[in-house]
Structure formats: structure tokens, C-alpha cells
């Protein structure tokens, strides 16, 4: 058993002549919140997409629980227990909260109706969706059948996170979850992230927001020029140090584990 729940070694990804990932490494420990920061174009998204199956790296390997895995699609990563909340949330605005939470993995009714007529078990799905949302403290959403577009930005983010938490058995990856949110809503989402850790789920948090990162992260992965420039403990460095490493103005001398 490896120390790391999710690990990547020497990932390389090229787009034509642009090298987006230049033998990048990545390590996520069990039960931690790992923040990934980096300037625009540093290759954060490419790194995350390689881990979530949205992109196949040219070289390098990804290990889940110490075992080599090769995700050919987001579905494959998801089947392995890695759930990703994308920046655009991947929600269908006109469909209901419950529909969205079970999109692509609907539950069919038991017995004849489900087998022959493929009837969905809406009752069970509604109940599970409601349970999940209340578990995460999102009871402000009253009606589980209300369309997602009637929700606020924070509530939508909440639905997306709840979906990931409901199905992610091993890792939850969050891409810029607070970027489009106000102060209050961001707070709610940060609480959600801390809640995920409390429930024992390791979280990968991609964010530009330094205060948020320093508040919730156990460790910070700083990405620069397609590779990991440093892996730091937020306690050992200041925010401006982190930004300096991110932009190349400084190098991290000690990589704290």
C-alpha cells in the first residue's frame, strides 16, 4: 500500500510545440486537502485533466492507491472513485437537482418495470439526493425537483460538490470552486470542502484565491512551467512567498512533507 492515494510521475503532455506538462509529479495523501496553485498557463488544468481522465498524457504514469491506472475517459476515472467538479460545473440548467445529481448513473426501478420498461426510480433518487444535500448542510434547497437554473451560484456549486461527494469514493477534485462566487457563498463552499475532509475524502483544490487556499489546504502544490515547482506546508510560508514561487521570483528551499 502506497503512502499516496493518488500519485502521478513524470507526466508529459504536448500540444503541438507547446509543452503543457514537462515531466510533472503529483502526490495526494489520504484524508488531506491538497491545493494546486499556479499562474495562468502553468499547466494546472492539463495536470488535473490528466488525473481526472479528461485528457490522456503523452508520457508518465498515474497511480491510484499505488496501482498504475490509465483513464481513457472521465467515466473511467469516475468508475475508479475519482470525482471531478469542473469549473463550469457540468450541470444541465433546465433539469432538476435530482436529475443532475444522477445524470449518467440513473437508478432504475426494481423488478419488471425497471427491467422491461427501464423506468427510473425517481423516489429513491430524490431521497438520496435530498439526503446527500442535507448531509452537506445544503438544506437551503427546498425542492429537489426544482430546475438548477433557479439556484444561486453557490447553491449550484453545492449541488455539483454534493454530486461528487455522493459518488466519489476515493478522491474529489474541485476546479476553481469559488472563482465565480461572492464572499458568503465562497464561505459556504469552503465549509463544504472542509466537510469532505472530515468525512475522510481527500480533496484536490485548484484555486487562484490565496486566502482560501491558505485557509483550507493541508499542503500546497505549486505548479510552474509545466512542472511542480514546490510542495509546501501553508504554515511554513507566507502567501507572498507562494506567489513568488509561483511566478519564479523565488525557489522553495525546503520541501516540507
Amino acid at each position, binding site marked *: 500500500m502506497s503512502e499516496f492515494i493518488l500519485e502521478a510521475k513524470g507526466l508529459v503532455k504536448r500540444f503541438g510545440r507547446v509543452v503543457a506538462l514537462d515531466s510533472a509529479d503529483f502526490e495526494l495523501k489520504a484524508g488531506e486537502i491538497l491545493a494546486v496553485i499556479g499562474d495562468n498557463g502553468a499547466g494546472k488544468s492539463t495536470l488535473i485533466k490528466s488525473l481526472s481522465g479528461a485528457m490522456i498524457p503523452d508520457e508518465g504514469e498515474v497511480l491510484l492507491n499505488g496501482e498504475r491506472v490509465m483513464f481513457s475517459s472521465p*467515466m473511467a476515472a469516475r468508475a475508479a472513485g475519482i470525482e471531478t467538479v*469542473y469549473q463550469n460545473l457540468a*450541470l444541465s440548467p*433546465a433539469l432538476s437537482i435530482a436529475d443532475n445529481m444522477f*445524470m449518467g448513473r*440513473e437508478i432504475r426501478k426494481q423488478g419488471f418495470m425497471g427491467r422491461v420498461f427501464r423506468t427510473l426510480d*425517481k423516489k429513491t433518487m430524490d431521497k438520496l439526493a435530498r439526503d446527500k444535500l442535507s448531509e452537506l*448542510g445544503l438544506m437551503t434547497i427546498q425542492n429537489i425537483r426544482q*430546475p438548477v437554473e*433557479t439556484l444561486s451560484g453557490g447553491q449550484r456549486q453545492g449541488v455539483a460538490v454534493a454530486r461528487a461527494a455522493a459518488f466519489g469514493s476515493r478522491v474529489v477534485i474541485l476546479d476553481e470552486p469559488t472563482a465565480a462566487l461572492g464572499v458568503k457563498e465562497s464561505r459556504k463552499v469552503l465549509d463544504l470542502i472542509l466537510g469532505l475532509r472530515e468525512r475522510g475524502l481527500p480533496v484536490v483544490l485548484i484555486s487562484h484565491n490565496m486566502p482560501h487556499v491558505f485557509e483550507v489546504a493541508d499542503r500546497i502544490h505549486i505548479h510552474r512551467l509545466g512542472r511542480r515547482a514546490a510542495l509546501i506546508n501553508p504554515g511554513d510560508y507566507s502567501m507572498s512567498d507562494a506567489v513568488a514561487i509561483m511566478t519564479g521570483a523565488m525557489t522553495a528551499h525546503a520541501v516540507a512533507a
Partner: protein
Amino acid sequence: MSKTESSTQGYEGGLSAGSADVAQFAPERRTIVKSIQHALHVNPALIPLFILSLSVAGFGIILGDRFFSPFSLTLILQQVAIVGVVAAAQTLVILTKGIDLSVGAIMVLSSVVMGQFTFRYGFPPELAILCGFAVGALCGLINGVLVAVVKLPPFIVTLGMWQIVLASNFLYSRNETIRSQDIQADAPLLQFFGQSLRFGGAVLTFGVIAMVILVAVLTYVLNNTAWGRHVYAVGDDADAAQLAGVRVKRTLISVYVLSGLICALAGWVLIGRIGSVSPTAGQFTNIESITAVVIGGISLFGGRGSILGALFGALIVGVFGLGLRLMGTDPQWTYLMIGVLIIAAVALDQWIRRVST
């Protein structure tokens, strides 16, 4: 383990206290306009149903028994049966943010194949009908692959297919019509949907019954199966659906194939309606199906609406057509009314989309 458990419980304990007062403010805050908007959101067929009831009542009051008789009302059903069936196919495609301009052509080609295979090659009518369905499905498959895999815009793909299919139809049929008497004598199965049940003055053709069953089945499928939910999700936001785990390409192709199959069904119903097999029949079915869909409250921008709405849309057109004809007005008034309804329906769709956020 016990530590996690207790902390989780503590976490939830805090929530149950908070949730109570948040759950209260929703019903108070909801204004009448908001709740109407919400009702339309959940059930977009309400408006066309309302207009339909209003127009039936209106013409009933003005024209009395001439309009409000079982015979006239079922006549409307007979007149809209073909458009209703094709509109169901159109609805499926439009729900995925597409449009199918080839529906009318596929319908006619399928009916011609059913007729010609029987009379030119001497196929048993059952087999010829199956071949007609196969041709419809094949046309749909070509549309679907071009849209989903080659990623061409549906408008262009089906505009092209419209011409291709219609031209094939004329070339293959050599522009000849198979006469009704011949079909009646040699292959009455082709006219199956022309048969009818009579209850007093009411005449329900099998074509009308087929339309109603089709609408019922599709309503069930769209609302109660995963495939149905995926159709909506793909039309709503294809990228999001893909990321959420919907196989977008497969869903799109299946929608176009199903649309082709339904058009073939419409072709069979068409033979029943006009009696003969004519390559020049159903020239306006295309535009009529889109009209029915739009008036039925199905959004041309995808992801919103229901099959039932399309049926109501087709019926509204039928009611106005017959009602105005019985009143002895110039038929142009019908088209004028339909034009107004189309624009009003799209305006309403935009309003529903501009929801509170």
C-alpha cells in the same frame, strides 16, 4: 473511525438547527409571477394546452354545433394525425438543440418505398413496410452520424438531406403514383391507418390512435427513462452532459434514428390518409411540424419542452384551420394567426429562460 463518526454527527447537529428557518422563507417569497414561471418551467405544455382549450371553446361558442360536434372535433384529429406524428419526431430532434428539415422528405420516401416494394418487386406488404421503416432509420442514421460524429450543424445536415432524400424519392418512384384502388385490391395493409372506429358521429382513424399512442409512449420514455433525461441534458448543455457521464454521441445518433423511424411511421399513416402512394404528398409537413413544435412551447434552443406540447401545437393549428374555414373566412387568416402564435410562443420561451437567478 469513532472520531470521524462523532465529528460527522456534530456537523449534522449544527445543520438541523439551521435548516428549519431557511425552509420557511421560500413559500413566502414566491410571487404569483414567479410561481407561474416555475409551473411553466416544470410543465411547458401548459400554455399550449390553455390556448387549445380557449380556441376550442371560442370556436364552439361562435360556431355552435357545426364546430362543437363529435364529427368536426374528430375531423381535426384526422387532419393533424400526420403532422402530429412528424412533430413528435421533430420534437425529439429539437430537444437536442437540433432541427430536422428532412422529416417530410423521409416520410414521403418511406411511404414510396412501402408502395413501390410491394407493387414493383412484388414484396409482401409486411416486408415492404419493414423496408420503409429501414429506409427511414437509415436516413436518420446518416443525419445522426453527420451531426454527432462529423459535428456539422443540424440545420445544414438536414437541409442537405431534405434535398437528397426528396430527389431520391422522385428519381426512384419515377414520379408515379400508386392508385388507391390498386392498393385496396392488392395490399390493403398499406392503408391500415386509414381504417377507423366510429362512435356516433365521432370518427377515429387508426392514424389518430397511432398518433395518440406514439405521444403517450414518447412522453413516458422522455420523463421516466435515463435515455429520456439524457436527451434533455444533451440539448441543454452537451458539454456538461458529456462531463456528467452522458454518452452524447450515442444519444444524438439514437435521437435522429428514432426520428427517422417515426417519419417512416408517418409515411405509413400518410398512405392511410390519402389512400394512394404519391411522391408529391406531404410537401408542407416539414414546416408544419416545426410550427407545431414551436407553438407547443418546445424551445428551439434545446432542452425544454414536451412531446405533449407538440401535440397541442399541432391541434391548435388544426383547430384554427377548421374553425376559420367553417366561419367562411379567407384561409389566409389561418396563416396569419399561426404566424402570430409562433412569434408569441418564442417570446414566451425567452421569458421562461430568463428565470430568476
